[in-house]
């Protein structure tokens, strides 16, 4: 990132030639379409630099020519839309097949947020790395669990970290978890329809200092005279568009009231539970490169997620204590790695509290498997002895 900026890599015309997938088809086809596509490519990039939908976020990327994106987006239901699109070149072939296999999970409980993931990085049948790190800390109170394409996740996690740090330097306070999720979601939106595949959960804790600055649902203030915080994003279009937490408020107000009623409607919930959607406290967001952004209390992502959900859905409660929560997360990852071929090796566990995150040692699940086998054998022996008696 820094090296790119320092060397001015984006702005050289050579860099345009290198990274376009269209250049792969150059030797195969005739040259005239290449020239046309080159014009459109340069136009496309120019447009993407400050595309109509990203509100002027200053990201410069090598984006594949827009022509290839439309066929990927439109599935069978929307064939009518694809006929309306002006470009009609065949979709670019990927140089290698992308495959994503992982198990990551995160949940909120009274003691904070637990995030757990396996450590196998697979590449269609090959274990590319048995000790990858899928949970990446962004700052002391925010973790990102990554799933999808490894390269994309690594890049976007670094971009997110950079933008959050820039926000902190510019505004003097740390961006809230809600704001961070919105930032990531808005940054990924221009790439919707391309092959970017990022499915991340942001786990964090909003600390007290953020609360002081926020508008606690005072919509009259914001719509009326407007304090500085609400006007500044409009004055500086170069910055991220929806970063101020006041924006997060208006949607959260509606979800707040909706969620209060959920708690009353469901009868088997623990009554000692405090509302998770307070301004400060543990937060969990799922952000996906197709544009989804969901706030929740339990998420599992990846090919092993159905198995993890099976373990977690029955057991996760607000009132868990720390050891129970940690062992539950370990068990869920273990079960998922047991059945899913693309998850395995070790388990990483992080626990976030108001003081920040703390990381447990990485545990090899092979040992867990052997321990369980011994337990099963022992149980079998005991039962057969009882039968004999």
């Amino acid at each position: 990132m820094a090296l790119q900026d320092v060397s001015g890599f984006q702005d050289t015309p050579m860099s345009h030639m290198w990274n376009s997938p269209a250049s792969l088809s150059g030797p195969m086809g005739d040259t005239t379409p290449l020239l046309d596509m080159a014009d459109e490519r340069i136009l496309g990039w120019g447009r993407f630099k400050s595309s109509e939908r990203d509100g002027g976020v200053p990201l410069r990327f090598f984006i594949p020519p827009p022509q290839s994106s439309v066929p990927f987006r439109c599935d069978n239901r929307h064939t009518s839309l694809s006929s309306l699109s002006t470009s009609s070149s065949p979709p670019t072939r990927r140089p290698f097949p992308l495959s994503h296999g992982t198990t990551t999970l995160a949940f909120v409980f009274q003691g904070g947020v637990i995030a757990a993931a396996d450590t196998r990085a697979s590449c269609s049948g090959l274990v590319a790395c048995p000790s990858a790190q899928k949970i990446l800390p962004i700052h002391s109170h925010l973790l990102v669990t990554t799933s999808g394409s490894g390269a994309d996740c690594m890049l976007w996690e670094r971009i997110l970290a950079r933008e959050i740090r820039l926000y902190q330097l510019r505004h003097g306070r740390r961006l809230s978890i809600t704001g961070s999720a919105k930032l990531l979601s808005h940054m990924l939106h221009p790439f919707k329809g391309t092959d970017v595949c990022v499915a991340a959960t942001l786990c964090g804790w909003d600390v007290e200092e953020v609360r002081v600055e926020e508008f606690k649902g005072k919509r009259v203030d914001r719509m009326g005279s407007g304090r500085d915080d609400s006007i500044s994003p409009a004055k500086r279009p170069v910055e991220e568009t929806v970063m101020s937490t006041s924006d997060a408020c208006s949607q959260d107000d509606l979800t707040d009231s909706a969620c209060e009623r959920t708690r009353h409607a469901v009868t088997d919930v623990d009554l000692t539970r405090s509302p998770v959607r307070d301004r400060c406290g543990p937060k969990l967001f799922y952000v996906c490169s197709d544009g989804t952004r969901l706030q929740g209390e339990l998420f599992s992502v990846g090919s092993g997620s159905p198995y993890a959900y099976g373990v977690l859905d029955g057991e996760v409660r607000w009132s868990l204590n720390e050891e129970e929560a940690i062992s539950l997360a370990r068990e869920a990852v273990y079960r998922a790695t047991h059945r899913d071929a693309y998850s395995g090796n070790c388990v990483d566990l992080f626990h976030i509290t108001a003081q920040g995150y703390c990381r447990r040692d990485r545990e090899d699940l092979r040992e867990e498997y052997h321990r369980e086998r011994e337990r099963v054998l022992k149980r079998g022996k005991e039962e057969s002895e009882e039968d004999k008696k």
Partner: protein
Amino acid sequence: MEYLIGIQGQDFVLVAADNVAAHSIVKMKQDQDKMFKLSDKILLLCVGEAGDTVQFAEYIQKNIQLYKMRNGYELSPTAAANFTRKNLADYLRSRTPYHVNLLLAGFDETDGPGLYYMDHLSALAKAPFAAHGHGLNHRFILNLPSFSVRLIDKDGTHDLEKLIPVGAK
């Protein structure tokens, strides 16, 4: 599998939306709110492709708020509906169309209650009742776990009790 429904009455509009946020076969969230408050008496209900719904709805929501900030008065439901339709139509013929189906419900001082149906091809129709969902034209699919219900009348927007089918959790 998402469902929106709206009914316009004499002096109110009643709207309901389901609460599931699904990702292919996994129900990631069961208490998702699909209604966006454009102003005190206007609600936008939005379903469709995963990221497009929230992006488009929030874009419209912020622009409506901006209008009020700039001009000092709010857009009427008719104006808001037409503004939304225009935006949807503009994006439709761009490289990045939004695939969303919308219902806009509002109460105007002079015109009374109004319910507007809009689909992903930016067709706009004012209707006394409308719905969006799978099997809309063939079957009435209601096997969704819960619905949020809201009522708009001259006093503003009111949240009603969530609908949970009997026997289901």
